[in-house]
């Protein structure tokens, strides 16, 4: 097999795994948009906040310690304990659910029936507010994320591909784990929305608010539910990205990676988000591999958008053609 083709295969595999992560972030957007028509600009910051909270809890750091110390003249920073990863994840999930409750109660409950642009603006405000809260709560230093996910080259793949192609693929165990977890999460979400009472209610609200009300569904409840789920998705995305490159502000920029995915997959389609993420992941990796060296590299920053824009021109309704929901 020609060498270039083998390299391209490796690149495709890596791109696919990155793509699944994009899908995960995009999914957070889709969940909220489908049920409430809100484009949640804060999704990326939610991932940052979730990751910060997880690391903070794990390390036993005192939340808001700077504020507390400034007011009471104390010098407390740590509880002096370490929390096991699983427990810390559970606690972070609870924090994200509380966040969902507060967002619904204090922001969106008062904006029911407003123009989408107003709702969007509100999420921009929310993003900057949450960023500030995150700083106040946990500080703004770069943190290491370690929840026990495997890291480093996968030897089995390295050896196997070396035998077959005479060239060992470099596939990171972390990417493999992330892909697996993302896949499980996505399947879980689909099963949840298809077969559970709450899932049915979610789909109903996404389809028609009036009809949903008439069968006894509380919109408020469903909105809290989707914000909670989006928070959990953000946490998972935050853990993946954080484990890879540390928990820091730039983590919130993963949201930018989800936008082209949404343009491609449609804002209301869960399958669209998944397949869209993979196409973008593979597309940008292959483009960088094939064309990047000729034009000085770093094409990942913009190629996804070009791909998505091209797509928009030819298929404005996105991959799976679900129509854009009109709000009443």
């Amino acid at each position, binding site marked *: 097999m020609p060498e270039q083709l083998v390299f391209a295969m490796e690149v495709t595999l890596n791109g696919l795994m990155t793509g699944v992560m994009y899908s995960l972030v995009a999914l957070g957007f889709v969940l909220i948009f489908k049920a409430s028509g809100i484009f949640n600009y804060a999704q990326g910051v939610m991932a940052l906040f979730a990751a910060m909270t997880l690391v903070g809890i794990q390390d036993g750091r005192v939340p808001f310690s700077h504020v507390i110390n400034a007011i009471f003249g104390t010098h407390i920073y740590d509880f002096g304990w370490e929390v096991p990863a699983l427990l810390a994840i559970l606690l972070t999930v609870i924090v994200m659910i509380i966040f969902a409750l507060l967002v619904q109660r204090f922001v969106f409950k008062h904006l029911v029936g407003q123009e989408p642009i107003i709702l969007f603006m509100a999420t921009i405000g929310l993003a900057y507010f949450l960023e500030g809260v995150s700083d106040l709560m946990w500080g703004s230093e770069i943190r290491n994320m370690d929840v026990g996910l495997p890291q480093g080259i996968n030897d089995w793949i390295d050896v196997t591909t070396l035998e077959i192609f005479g060239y060992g693929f470099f596939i990171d165990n972390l990417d493999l784990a992330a892909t697996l977890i993302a896949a499980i999460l996505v399947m879980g979400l689909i099963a949840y929305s298809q077969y*559970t*009472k709450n899932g049915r209610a979610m789909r109903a609200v996404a389809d028609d608010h*009036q*009809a949903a009300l008439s069968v006894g569904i509380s*919109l408020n409840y469903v909105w809290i539910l989707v914000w909670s789920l989006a928070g959990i998705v953000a946490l998972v995305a935050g853990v993946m990205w954080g484990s890879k490159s540390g928990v820091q502000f730039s983590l919130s920029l993963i949201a930018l990676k989800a936008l082209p995915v949404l343009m491609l997959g449609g804002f209301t389609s869960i399958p669209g988000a998944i397949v869209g993420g993979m196409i973008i992941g593979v597309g940008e990796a292959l483009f960088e591999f094939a064309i990047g060296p000729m034009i000085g590299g770093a094409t990942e920053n913009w190629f996804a958008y070009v791909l998505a824009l091209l797509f928009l021109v030819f298929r404005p309704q996105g991959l799976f053609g679900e129509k854009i929901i009109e709000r009443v």
Partner: protein
Amino acid sequence: MLDNATEGYVTADGRQIGPVVMEMKGITLRFGGVEAIRGISFDIREGEIRAIIGPNGAGKSSMLNVISGFYHPQEGEVFYRGVKRPPMKPYMVARQGIARTFQNIALFEGMSVLDNVMTGRLNHMKVGLLGQALWWGKAEAEEVKNRAKAEEVIDFLGIQAIRKTPVGRLPYGLKKRVELARALAAEPQILLLDEPMAGMNVEEKEDMSRFILDVNDEFGTTIVLIEHDMGVVMDLSDRVVVMDYGKKIGDGTPEEVRNNQEVIDAYLGVSHD
């Protein structure tokens, strides 16, 4: 003339009509300067078919929306089973056993007929989020039970052939029927129907009339029916409220209403389809 007995009575065709289950007292509803409902009072008895008629814009749909909690009147009170009802969200009203259909059809267009009907069962599903995760067996048993009920309703309305069809693809008449199926799946005590026969051909109208009578007869469901077609109303209903320009201008049996001069002037004089 109807008796005032609180106990109820037996109709000519032998159905038992019970005591008053819902009472509207002095309802006034305004939209800005428009008074859609002006000080209307009437009651609904258990097990009866209660019609609300009147020309377009009379305020009939508004009244149904007040009953189902979609609109909240500025004045007046709603009594349900003898208790004054506080202002309620529509989903709370639905959970009290009051189901409805809409004049302009509100279905889940992206879902299949069966899924639409299943949403009518949501209030009967008890096992929640954690229960479903931890106690799969029980959740499954419940799903099976609710599914059976949904299928029963689908059979009852004769829409087995389209069970799996996405609702968005159905013609208007069938959509109306699916909407009725979803409401019935909730096993409501009171069923509110806003012009269930509007836009239907004669045959479809006959089918729908028969379904309404069957539901009332077999399950004893109280039905509040808004209808434009005078003939249909006279055939179906036990008692009729007549509205015009937001006011109540008649209330009684179909014969009483038909012979009421004010009704004849205001309503029968107006052309309607």
